[in-house]
């Protein structure tokens, strides 16, 4: 038997569907036994990746699809977000983003570009495949004490 369940959604590349996709992923994460904070992290990271796919891959006139695949393990979730549109250079973008600096003057603070930084901050592993579209793979592990199977019951 396969060691994980696979769940896939094909999402129209419109921002109005980011919320419902995030809700579905949070439901899956909840079943695995992630903590409240971890689920919130997963929600943000997946929304960032889906938003990136929608905004970068498809120009406004062209409607495509974003494929969101989730592998459900007993102790982790793997989320894959793929677009098949115009790819952008993830590595190049990544080098340009990062946290804000206290010394930065108000007028120079960027208003975008935090998405990739947040994905890497909030997930345990992030991999990106840039080949005829961008695919982001990200993994989050359940902190051991939160997996119900591992809870030890005192016996007398």
């Amino acid at each position, binding site marked *: 038997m396969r060691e994980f369940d696979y769940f896939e959604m094909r999402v129209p590349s419109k921002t109005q569907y980011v919320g419902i996709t995030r809700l579905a992923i949070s439901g899956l994460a909840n079943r695995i036994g992630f903590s409240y904070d971890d689920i919130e992290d997963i929600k943000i990271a997946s929304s*960032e990746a889906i938003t990136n796919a929608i905004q970068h891959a498809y120009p406004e006139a062209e409607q495509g699809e974003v494929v969101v695949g989730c592998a459900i393990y007993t102790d982790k979730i793997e989320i894959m977000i793929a677009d098949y549109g115009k790819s952008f250079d993830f590595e190049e973008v990544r080098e340009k983003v990062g946290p804000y600096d206290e010394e930065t003057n108000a007028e120079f603070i960027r208003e975008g570009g935090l998405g990739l930084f947040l994905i890497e901050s909030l997930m345990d592993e992030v991999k990106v495949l840039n080949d005829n579209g961008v695919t982001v793979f990200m993994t989050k592990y359940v902190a051991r004490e939160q997996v119900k199977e591992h809870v030890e019951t005192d016996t007398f």
Partner: protein
Amino acid sequence: MLSMVSGEVDAFTAPSLREELLAVDIQEDMLVELNLSEVSYMDSTGLGVIVAFYKNVTANKGRLVLVGLSQRLQRLFDITGLSGVIHIEKEGAVNDHERI
């Protein structure tokens, strides 16, 4: 001036929030308090809107203070370094467990 943001701020809802905030008439020395206690979800698109508003307030010589951040939201501002740039009033911070 007091303003309240509520609900989920993501790629879908951020544009209308941006429009509303940028329509606010900022005058010199004005203290603008943005209450985020009813925000249930925010990602980088929401942060971008807050940054744009902060820049607008600052450019017009006003002052912006964010209040009512949940622990989650505070963490988001900390991770991104925004809490070092924008003034956040921590007193009366809403505890996540009290919100549910």
